[in-house]
């Protein structure tokens, strides 16, 4: 789950990373309550989960006299289609230099990897593309509690030694918060010290419970409903509903729909060993997506039993047509149950997808 800037900054501050003094508001009028804290120049920042926020107009400059009007305007805009619900007003730093630091996982090495560049800011991706040597990286054994000093020196080069300390503290955030990504861009030097001017933090969905996060905000309402039943569910906007078991098989079913020039409405993986009730909920959930005209069920029975699947489909009682491909454990019985109720069944995933594409046409 992605955290917003102000949430990430709070966690960074807890690990000793200095962040600018800031005020969080959800209405521009609230700023009046904080006028004492607003001294000189400020930055007004929309708290939206959008990449390239600065370039999209989500970060504005203001001062004590213009801050309320600036915030009012920002609340009335959308940033790449996302409405602005919260704004962070921060003291404007006297920036001497901007750096970039980002910590994530190296899948090949199975280790944390730290990226560092001596020129941070809005154009880091551009910088990296033009000059691969501009971004330094180190990876190291995840059993170490700190980034080894020699690696920090190698990584940060001529940057002030305070920067090395911050990189190590960011590594602590990365570990303690179960992060998939912890990033500061820009990390800035000022006459008053080193600050994280921005903050990015993505928490591992498998660690939300132990991080005390009850609700995964990245999910839509229907996705959250799916999560309750233990389904992985993603809406895709087309008209062919998809239910599969296993992420790979379900993804492959979506690809086949595209191969036959159809458009999938969703990705729904019922998981392993689904019983009739889970299948029933899955069919009802997909049928509740307004654009769905037909549902393809592609299930390969291993631990999942085809007769249970058939009972679930029948019990769902949805009005959209459901076309089925089931194979594996108890296939005969499942097929018999479905054919008695007049459901259309096909032998292979190619056939079932082809048929569904015909039905919507």
């Amino acid at each position: 789950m992605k955290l917003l800037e102000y949430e990430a900054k709070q966690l960074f501050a807890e690990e000793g990373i200095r962040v600018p003094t800031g005020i969080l508001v959800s209405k521009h009028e609230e700023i009046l309550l904080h006028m004492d804290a607003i001294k000189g120049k400020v930055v007004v920042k929309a708290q939206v989960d959008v990449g390239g926020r600065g370039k999209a107009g989500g970060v504005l400059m203001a001062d004590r006299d213009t801050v309320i009007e600036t915030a009012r305007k920002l609340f009335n805009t959308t940033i790449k289609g996302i409405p602005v619900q919260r704004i962070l007003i921060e003291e404007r730093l006297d920036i001497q230099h901007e750096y970039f630091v980002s910590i994530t996982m190296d899948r090949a090495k199975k280790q944390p990897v730290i990226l560092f560049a001596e020129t941070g800011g809005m154009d880091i991706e551009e910088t990296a593309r033009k000059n691969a040597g501009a971004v330094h990286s180190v990876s190291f054994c995840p059993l170490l509690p700190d980034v080894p000093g020699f690696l920090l020196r190698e990584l940060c080069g001529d940057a002030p030694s305070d920067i090395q300390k911050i990189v190590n503290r960011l590594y602590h955030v990365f570990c303690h918060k179960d992060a998939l990504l912890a990033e500061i861009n820009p990390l800035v030097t000022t006459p008053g010290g080193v600050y994280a001017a921005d903050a990015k933090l993505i928490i591992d969905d498998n660690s939300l419970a132990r991080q005390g996060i009850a609700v995964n905000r990245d999910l839509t309402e229907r996705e959250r409903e799916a999560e309750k039943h233990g389904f992985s569910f993603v809406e895709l906007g087309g008209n062919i509903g998809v239910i599969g078991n296993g992420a790979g098989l379900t993804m492959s079913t979506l690809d086949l729909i595209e191969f036959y020039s159809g458009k999938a409405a969703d990705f729904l993986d019922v998981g392993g060993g689904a019983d009739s009730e889970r299948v029933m909920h899955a069919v009802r959930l997909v049928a509740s997506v307004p654009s769905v005209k037909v549902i393809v069920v592609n299930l390969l029975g291993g631990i999942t039993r085809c007769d249970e699947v058939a009972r679930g489909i029948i019990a769902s009682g949805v009005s959209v047509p459901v076309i089925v491909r089931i194979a594996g454990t108890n296939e005969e019985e499942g097929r018999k149950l479905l054919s008695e109720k007049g459901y259309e069944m096909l032998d292979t995933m190619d056939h079932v997808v082809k048929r569904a594409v015909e039905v919507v046409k």
Partner: protein
Amino acid sequence: MIYGDKKTGIIVAGATGRQGEYHIGLMNEYARQVGGRGVVAGVTPKKGGQTVYGVPVYNTVKEALKEQDATASVIFVPGTAAADSIMESADAGLELVVAITEHVPVHDTMKAIAYAEMKGCAVIGPNCPGLLSPGEVKMGIMPAGLFSRGHVGVISRSGTLTYEVVDELTRAGIGQSTVVGIGGDPVIGQTFSDVLERFAEDPETKAVVLIGEVGGNLEAEAARNTEVPLVAYIAGVSAPPDKRMGHAGAIVEGGESDARSKIAKLKKMDIPVASRPSEIPDLVRDLFRCHC
């Protein structure tokens, strides 16, 4: 075959849980069919002394190894305890750990794998269906009925998609040497490269089917560094960016982690890439025609 054979003794961690118990039954049914040793011990803390399908249960892996001869373990313990279980197996001196468990926090996985590798123990998974060498050994949850013995290796990040492909291969008369599900998480123990290294040394394996998906860039990296003849399939051509497609590791995050980039890279290396699973058997047959 790679990773194990009929002689491999297996320990199941999480033996008294619902999943552990069920799959001890299935693994040993398979072992009986092929004349293998199968699961020789179960481990569940505080449940030592019980039996599951006649298999003795111990409190710890070390206790189990005092009485039983085993070199591998299969792990069914739940998410946040799985890493501990992987390290326990590695510490006790096992050569191989197959971690079936889903929803393991990725920081736990990284640490457990680093620890296991230090101890000289290979980890398959987590979040994987395990492996099966037809006629030899089954370590994990793959449905044995679909498999047939032969000379094609399979490596996959997925579970049911693997079964789909194995089913297609078997129906086409193409048997398998070993089928390995390496798992759908962003950080896993044995990667495509690691498994391909083993296949390269395996006289039973003449070609390998590589089943990848969106996320990361390890498919092409592995293909670049092997001499083994390959056929590839990459799932997720239609996957939108920044959405997790079921597997924690199946996410397009910029760079070259999308399916089309991967397919383009593989094709550039002259590796045949199937556009759908049903094409795989034909591509494997073409490969044999060229190489044999």
